Structure formats: structure tokens, C-alpha cells
């Protein structure tokens, strides 16, 4: 008797299994309807009639195509129609951080960002000085191909890799105050401590910062920080897009940040003035040295772009926004 009961249960379950499968395979028409209804309460800005109407039209259309109004034929035809993959979308900015387009088998699916997921708006930057910026972009592009790249290439022939590594470590170690201070400004004493520890280890065991012993021996990776980021953390927006000669993509906020960081760099005080041939010379060497590790990266970004100027601007704002919000 008990065995029969168990068998019944198993049979019942086996019968249910296809249903489970079905539910999983079915495009999200059903659930989305529910979500529409649910969302219409707390998201009044979404035109619920619109989505509902669209969906009804969708069902009707498919029903007609199938010659039957049955729910299953709707699902079946939705699955059978691959061109539907190319159907319309329902929203711009489908929330890159939490995208929620309908699945391909349900191209008319709602683009509501699902509940429980906060959607950061896609970072954008105003570009009122576009003609100037475009000119500066072309200027910097030429400077890269005519000055930085040949200089860095020649430099890397003359200076072997181990020495370039020493220089890179040395310069990075010297600028530790910039990162320590900015981490403190941002209320991140832990990160500041990491940078301080790194600075102390590399300055001593790493022989004046020539070796990056903190990372190689102790696994301290360090935490980058700059004043533009600090301002961003304090709630200052970038302002607008500004391409600086030689320095590249920036904004009033990050340009000002660069000046503040410059003041915090010990190298600056090698010279007698805030900017003179000595500290700027050191900066140029630092740039050439670091460029020698990154030859080909700018070219790759440019090659990938359809409109390089717009692409660089977008990379700049996406990168800086991520740097401010997520680190």
C-alpha cells in the first residue's frame, strides 16, 4: 500500500517534470505580463497600457499566424520564429549596468529593469567645446604618432626592460604621497595605509623604490587615487569634456585635479618653479618610460572605433565614472 503511494508520487512527479521543463523553455511572456502589472504600481512613469497593448497585439498576431488562439500555440510559434530575434526593442539605455531586454524568443519583451537591481545611468559628458576638443584630439594624435611613439620605441631599444621597470617603480614610488593623501581625502584610511606600507617597503627593501618589493614579496598591490577622483567622490561632476594638449582627455574637474596632484608630487620641488624644465623634464621621461610599456594600446583603441574622437570621449567618461564610483 505504501509502495503504491510512493509510486503514485513518483508518477505524479514524472508527469509534472515536463511542465517544469515547459515553464523553463517558454519565453517570458507570462511572467512579463505579471511584472508589467506589478510594476505599473510603483513605476507610474512606465506606460502600462502601451506595453499591455503591444503584448496583446503580439499575442493576436501570433494567434492569427498560427490559426488558433491557444496559449500553447503562442508559445510554440514564438519559439519557432527565429526572425523575431530581430524584432523591435522598447527602450533606449537598456541599462548597461543592469540590462533587461526581453529574451530573443520574446523580442517584444518589456525592458523594465528588474526589481531589486539598481540601475546606474550610463555615464555621459557634455561637449560644448567640441571644435576645440576635436582640434586638440588631432593635435594629441599627431603628438603621439610623431613624438611619444617614436621616442618610446627608440627609448625601449636603448634602455633594456629591467631598467625601464626600475624607472617605472621609482617614479611610482615617488608619487606615493599623491595616492596616500587622496585615499585619506576620500575617507579610505585602509587604502592609504596600504599605499603607505608599500611606500615604506619599496623605499627600504626595494632600494629607494627601484624594486616593487611590496607587490612582488608581500603581495601589496596598491590603490590608485588622484585628486580628480577625490573631487568626484565629494560629489563634483566632471563639468564638460576638455581635451588638454599633451595630457589628453580630461575635464575642468580632472584638469584641476591634475594641478593639485602636481603640487603633491615630490618631483615638482626638484625645480625652482611650479612648472620648469626640470620637473616637466622628469615628467616627460616618466611618460616616455611608461609609454614604452603601452605601445599599441592607443592604436588598438583607435582601430576599434568607428568614430575615434567620440570613442575616446566615451572611454574617458566611462573609465573615470567607474574609477570614482567603484573604487
Amino acid at each position, binding site marked *: 500500500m505504501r509502495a503504491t*503511494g*510512493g509510486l503514485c508520487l513518483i508518477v505524479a512527479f514524472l508527469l509534472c517534470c515536463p511542465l517544469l521543463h515547459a515553464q*523553463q523553455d517558454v519565453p517570458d511572456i507570462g511572467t512579463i505580463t505579471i511584472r508589467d502589472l506589478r510594476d505599473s504600481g510603483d513605476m507610474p512613469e512606465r506606460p502600462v497600457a502601451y506595453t499591455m497593448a503591444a503584448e496583446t497585439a503580439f499575442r493576436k498576431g501570433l494567434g492569427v499566424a498560427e490559426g488558433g488562439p491557444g496559449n500553447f500555440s503562442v508559445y510554440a510559434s514564438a519559439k519557432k520564429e527565429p*526572425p523575431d530575434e530581430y524584432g523591435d526593442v522598447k527602450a533606449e539605455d537598456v541599462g548597461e549596468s543592469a540590462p*533587461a531586454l526581453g529574451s530573443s524568443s520574446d523580442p517584444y519583451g518589456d525592458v523594465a529593469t528588474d526589481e531589486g537591481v539598481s540601475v546606474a545611468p550610463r555615464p555621459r559628458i557634455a561637449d560644448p567645446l567640441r571644435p576645440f576638443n576635436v582640434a586638440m584630439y588631432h593635435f594629441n594624435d599627431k603628438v603621439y604618432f610623431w613624438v611619444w611613439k617614436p621616442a618610446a620605441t627608440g627609448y625601449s631599444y636603448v634602455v633594456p626592460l629591467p631598467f625601464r621597470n626600475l624607472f617605472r617603480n621609482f617614479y611610482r614610488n615617488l608619487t606615493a604621497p599623491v595616492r596616500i593623501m587622496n585615499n585619506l581625502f576620500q575617507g579610505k584610511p585602509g587604502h592609504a595605509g596600504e599605499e603607505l606600507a608599500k611606500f615604506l617597503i619599496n623605499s627600504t627593501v626595494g632600494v629607494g623604490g627601484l624594486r616593487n618589493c611590496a*607587490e612582488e614579496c608581500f603581495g601589496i598591490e596598491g590603490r590608485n587615487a588622484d585628486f580628480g577622483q577625490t573631487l568626484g567622490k565629494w560629489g563634483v561632476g566632471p563639468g564638460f569634456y576638455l581635451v588638454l594638449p599633451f595630457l589628453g582627455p580630461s575635464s575642468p574637474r580632472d584638469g584641476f585635479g591634475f594641478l593639485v596632484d602636481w603640487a603633491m608630487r615630490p618631483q615638482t620641488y626638484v625645480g625652482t618653479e611650479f612648472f620648469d624644465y626640470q620637473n616637466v623634464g622628469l615628467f616627460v621621461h616618466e611618460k616616455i618610460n611608461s609609454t614604452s610599456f603601452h605601445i599599441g594600446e592607443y592604436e588598438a583603441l583607435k582601430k576599434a572605433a568607428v568614430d575615434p574622437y567620440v570613442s575616446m570621449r566615451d572611454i574617458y567618461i566611462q573609465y573615470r565614472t567607474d574609477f570614482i564610483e567603484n573604487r
Partner: protein
Amino acid sequence: MRRALAGLMIFVISMVPFHVFAASALDMVKTNANSVLDVLRDPKLKGEAGKKVKEQRIEAAAEKLFDYVELSKRTLGLNWNKLSMDQRKEFVELFKTLLRNTYIDRITAYTNENVEFTREVQLTDTTTEVQSVVTRGSTRVPINYRVIKKGDDWMVYDVVIEGVSLISNYRTQFREILGNNPPQVLIDTLRKRVGK
């Protein structure tokens, strides 16, 4: 005893559908990425002939891994609706070719980067972000793959490198083109770009 057995049977059977459902996005991307890395590390594939074979195998892996239609839709956003059906299909093909041409050299130029998949973060019901770190020398580059559930598979629809989203970047560019021009101009621009 029998009851326990029956209970066990039910338990085992009930695991079946859910087991399929729980295929991890991270494992999926990792498996595909590792198969590409194996091809790249293959010492037999050298020189021009080897490069051809490498390219073919990478393309095959990419075909399995990327959902180009989803990627195109999300790249165009609402502008997608302005394209006719034929334009949409052509756009997907052109965009795919553009991405292939752009990145295949970068991938085959692989030397000895170390790729480590760290974790996955669920974004929505159907989408997940698989996070990885590529280490080359002393530089670490975080690369995140955004994947969407398609049937039992996870398909990549966006790649985020150091906080810069690929589809977001192209969207900004395409929007500028589509702002003042009909969709055909975008198609023509892409055609020219991929040399067709």
C-alpha cells in the same frame, strides 16, 4: 525503508530539471575562454598557417559564446527600431565583422597572459556578470563578461574592460551617426569600415 527509497527517488528525479537550470554562467564563460587559451598556447600552431587555424578556432568559439543579435540590439538601443528588417540583419553581420577584425589580431597576439575568473554577480533574472582578471607582467586588467541566459546557455552580450563597456562605447558612436542621418548611412559607414 521503501518510503525512504521512494522519497529518495523523488528527490533525485526532482533534481533533474533544476540541475539543467543551474548551469553556472562563470563555468560556461570559463570553459569557452579556456578552450580559446588552449588553442593560443598550442605550440604546434606557429607561423602563418598556424595563425589561420588559430583564427578559425577562435571564430568558432566566439560564435558559440557571443550573442551578436542581443549585442547589436543593446548597442543601438531605440535606434534599432528605425532599421528595417534587412538593415537589422545586415547591421548584425557588419558589426560582427567589425568586432572580429578589431579583436582577432589582439587575441592571436596573446603571449603569456594569465586569465583568472574571479566571481559572478547576478544583474537581473536573466543576466549575470562574470568577472575575470587578466595579468600580464605587473599589470592587471579587470575584464567582465555580461551574459544573458538563452535556453540552457549563457551568451555574452557585453564585455566591460576596466569599467568601459563595449556596447556602451559603440552606442555613443552610433548615436552620433544616427542623430543626423538615416540608418542607411550607418550601414554604409560600417560597410566602408569593414571593407565590403
